[in-house]
């Protein structure tokens, strides 16, 4: 199963790296004839880098064919549902922003023109998804404007589900199958997945980072991949900076200690370079930050905002993430039973959630409109990672003898 994880990581990081290199090639003004061999060389090096990792200590294969069979069933059902949810041009934000940017980036000469557009085009949004789609469109000689964004969204949705399942199946097939069932039957997750927004790629890379940080406890080399995944988060959406920053801070000792800092820096060098070139050299300031003023700061004292945010948060949990609510209570109960505090990575995800909610306090937009149009997608970004971290703790049930639970409960 671990090989499955590594290959999905390769595919994800391959897309992220290609997107960054393509953007940098546009900045330098390289022609497609030079870009393509460079990207192929990058893929070759990435493949060798991931292949060379020592993984023997991590392989725990129990009935792999059964696990693959369950996954195949899950993916077929998901695929069938995705066909029903997909829209021709994606959701509104997909064609009005992400795919709109891709149409510019697919043109080697006019790529930077969209940066001069109005603020509601959001020209400051990072370019992982648009640049990747743009390269594919350019390779298809300016055709298939709807095909590649659709293919990318299908890939990221299914890859997130597969990665979640594969990472859990290493520890417990039962837990992995239960989680697979929950995700496959989650219409909101699938619908958002094929909406062609960048929220699912961000959820995917954040999940990759969390899984690699967890694997890093068994094999330090995975921390380097985790750092690369955090870089991909930053290059996917502005919120990715927060997710990457929080997870990095919570695991700073692992990322920096034991001479790991050299590998961490090497892994984030390319994403950081692409992001800095884009943000400093090209992107206009973010509209929410540039519009902020003294009144925005005073909003912190407005208690009605807190209650409205809380109300929308609960409403979202109830309407779109109902099983996450149940899972959360079971998880807290489980932590109480085994007398263990939630893992610090789970706490990192909770801090990200709190930051997202606090961010609404200071929004310059109409709060109700902002909550209505974006809160569900922010929760969608955190959902796979949170689900993985809760589910992985349940896999420890097999490792905990009942007698020890009884003794802890003083039976």
């Amino acid at each position, binding site marked *: 199963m671990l090989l499955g994880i590594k290959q999905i990581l390769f595919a994800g990081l391959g897309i992220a790296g290609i997107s960054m290199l393509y953007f940098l090639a546009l900045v330098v003004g390289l022609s497609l004839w030079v870009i393509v061999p460079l990207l192929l060389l990058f893929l070759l090096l990435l493949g060798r880098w991931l292949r060379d990792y020592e993984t023997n200590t991590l392989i725990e294969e129990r009935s792999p064919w059964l696990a693959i069979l369950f996954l195949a069933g899950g993916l077929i059902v998901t695929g069938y549902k995705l066909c029903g949810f997909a829209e021709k041009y994606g959701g509104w934000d997909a064609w009005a922003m992400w795919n709109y940017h891709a149409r510019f980036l697919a043109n080697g000469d006019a790529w930077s023109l969209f940066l*001069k557009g109005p603020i509601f085009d959001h020209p400051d949004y990072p370019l992982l998804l648009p640049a990747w789609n743009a390269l594919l469109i350019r390779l298809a000689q300016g055709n298939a404007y709807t095909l590649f964004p659709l293919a990318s969204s299908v890939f990221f949705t299914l890859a997130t589900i597969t990665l979640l399942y594969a990472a859990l199946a290493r520890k417990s097939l039962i837990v992995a199958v239960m989680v697979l069932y929950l995700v496959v039957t989650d219409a909101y997750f699938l619908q958002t997945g094929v909406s062609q927004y960048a929220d699912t790629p961000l959820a995917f890379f954040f999940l990759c980072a969390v899984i690699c940080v967890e694997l890093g406890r068994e094999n330090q080399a995975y921390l380097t991949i985790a750092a690369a995944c955090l870089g991909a988060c930053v290059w996917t959406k502005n919120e990715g900076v927060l997710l990457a920053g929080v997870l990095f801070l919570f695991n700073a000792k692992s990322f920096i200690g034991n001479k790991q800092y050299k590998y961490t820096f090497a892994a984030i060098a390319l994403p950081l370079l692409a992001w800095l070139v884009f943000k400093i050299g090209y992107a206009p300031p973010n509209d929410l930050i540039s519009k902020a003023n003294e009144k925005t700061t005073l909003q912190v004292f407005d208690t009605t905002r807190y209650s409205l945010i809380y109300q929308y948060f609960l409403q979202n949990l109830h309407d779109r993430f109902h099983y996450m609510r149940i899972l959360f209570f079971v998880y807290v109960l489980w932590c109480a039973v085994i007398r263990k505090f939630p893992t610090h990575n789970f706490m990192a995800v909770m801090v990200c959630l709190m930051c997202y909610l606090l961010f609404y306090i200071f929004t310059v937009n109409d709060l109700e409109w902002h909550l209505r149009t974006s809160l569900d997608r922010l929760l969608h970004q955190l959902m796979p990672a949170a689900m993985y971290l809760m589910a992985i703790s349940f896999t420890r049930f097999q490792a905990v003898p009942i007698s020890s639970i009884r003794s802890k409960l003083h039976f």
Partner: protein
Amino acid sequence: MAFLHVIKSNAIIMLLTVVVAVVTFCSHRKLAQQHTEMDTFKMAFEGITTALPEQSKFSLQLFDVPQHLQFYVRYLLAPRLVYYPVIKSDTVILIGNTTAADSLTNSVSSLRQVMWHHQDSQFIYLLSCSR
């Protein structure tokens, strides 16, 4: 056995690739048959590319049509930059309701040079610049 090991090692990624390819192909084929509001504009703008080259900048004027249509124009005519609602460019695309087609065409053509025009059942489209 070696073959079986290779299959087993790559089963997940192969499975994922196949499902992604099949879902994309089926969805795309199904969606290609759908006709959306965006497709109406896409068909209308098919002939504009020679008159309005890529990288060009133009202003957009909407006459008695919903404001959200500007986003369709932006998307479909990228990589060209649209100025709306402020007129910053001499090249202007005017989209109006067909009920006012004659008066619009006359008023524009009497003052400006019409570079391209199109009309469908709902809208009239005029690309013009100053003489």
